[in-house]
């Protein structure tokens, strides 16, 4: 599992840092390193760019996995740089930003936009495969998620926009239901596609979703 991110434009980061001149930068050694959005190289590049627009970088670090609880220790090790900074710029996905926010009272600014949870098809090419909807349908859809792979998230078959097995929104993208049909047909399980799916339950649990694994 990877949290796929992209860097925000420097102008947007600058805007959020208005009046905050001293900044400590935190990167992430896991997903953001793999997506080349918040690893060591990108953190150093950001340092240079921020200095170029007149900001003072008090320190930087790349936390092994910014979203886990070890982040607290890593932050403590960088306490000096954090203390003298006005704000923290986090170059991880939103999960890492949340983790940092829970330990630091200073303004925490995200340098990345979190796009989706995806898998890497080939080096540098990521694909969204799960929308974390809380009601997995993969057993009925031949392992292709219609919530994620269909632009409209349809659960009862294709819309009228499907065209030669492609999607009306993007001719380069496969129609999820064409794929599901092909795979179910191969498996001799088209009866699953014929089954009426009732309206989805969007309230699996009220947000924010919390779970305790005992």
């Amino acid at each position, binding site marked *: 599992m990877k949290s796929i991110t992209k860097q925000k434009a420097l102008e947007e980061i600058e805007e959020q840092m208005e009046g905050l001149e001293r900044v400590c930068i935190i990167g992430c050694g896991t997903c953001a390193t793999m997506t080349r959005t918040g690893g060591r190289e990108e953190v150093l590049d950001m340092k240079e760019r921020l200095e170029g627009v007149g900001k003072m970088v008090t320190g930087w670090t790349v936390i092994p996995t910014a979203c886990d609880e070890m982040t607290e220790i890593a932050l403590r090790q960088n306490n000096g740089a954090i203390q003298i900074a006005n704000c923290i710029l986090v170059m991880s996905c939103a999960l890492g930003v949340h983790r940092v926010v829970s330990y630091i009272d200073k303004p925490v600014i995200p340098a990345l936009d979190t796009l989706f949870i995806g898998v890497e098809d080939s080096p540098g090419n990521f694909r969204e495969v799960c929308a974390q909807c809380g009601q997995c349908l993969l057993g009925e859809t031949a392992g292709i998620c219609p919530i994620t792979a269909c*632009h*409209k*998230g*349809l*659960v*009862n*078959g*294709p*819309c*009228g*926009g*499907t*065209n*030669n*097995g492609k999607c*009306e*929104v993007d001719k380069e993208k496969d129609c999820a*239901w*064409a794929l599901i*049909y092909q795979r179910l*047909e191969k498996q001799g399980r*088209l009866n699953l*596609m*014929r089954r*009426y*799916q*009732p*309206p*989805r339950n*969007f309230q699996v649990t009220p947000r924010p979703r919390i779970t305790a694994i005992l």
Partner: protein
Amino acid sequence: MATSFKDALNSGKFVVTSEIGPPKGTNVDKMCHHIDLLKDKVDGLNVTDHQSSVMRFPSLGGCLLIKERDCEPILQMTCRDRNRLALQAELLLAYTRGIRNVLCLTGDAIPVGDHKEAKEVFDLDSAQLLSAIRQLESGKDLGGNDLDGAVQFCAGAIVTPEARPIEPQLIKFDKKVEAGAEFFQTQAIYDLDNFSKFMQYARQFPVKVLAGIVLLVSARMAKYMTENIPGIFVPQNLIDELAGAPKGEALNKGIEIAGQMIADLKKNSICDGVHIMAIGREEVVPDILAAAGLSAG
């Protein structure tokens, strides 16, 4: 209009419906003019629901105008813009205002329209919307709560007989029938042999099918639709016919082609009627009907 759309469907006559595109704005003069022009020539008039995800005057508003002008409206409802509360509420309102026909569609995707940053809803899909109508008719809403006054609709859906591949579409068609569709309007058809094959399949089910007739106005438009509109394939011979028409005569050629198709469908009893989509050329729908040999009324 003396006969309801449902009665017309069940009468065994060759049913004709057409479509009104509502304005982008509050000037409904042109729409009212089109309604007046067509009301005595068709068995029902659809009003599109933000077709191609382009924001316009609503389908329900257009249907009320049709009703006021003594014609039979067919409310188009897509699942793109409203969640299940809003869809049900609109059905309640429509029913109290005398609207008795609903066409259930999934709806085009937002990125093809003119509000590309809007949030898409798709809380329900077209099959689920049909099912919701049947549930409201039973006196209960989708939450299972009792209604104080139920609805009753003649509910329909769409199907794309020329979709490639066709099999997934047919499964969806079956599901729509099961969910309660009484009639189907098809995406534009141009290949009558292919459509006849589809009708052989559809005839297994107790539903009425109105063939979609989209007026071709030029060879360019025919080519554009074939290349860009899902499920529309204009055969090369029709494109050639349009291209070969004398300058300024392509529209008349298109009217002739549409009229001929309707006449063939009727003569060979291929389907139960037609749904004519003139897309911005509503003025010439009477000419298409004349070319088809269908007299007024």
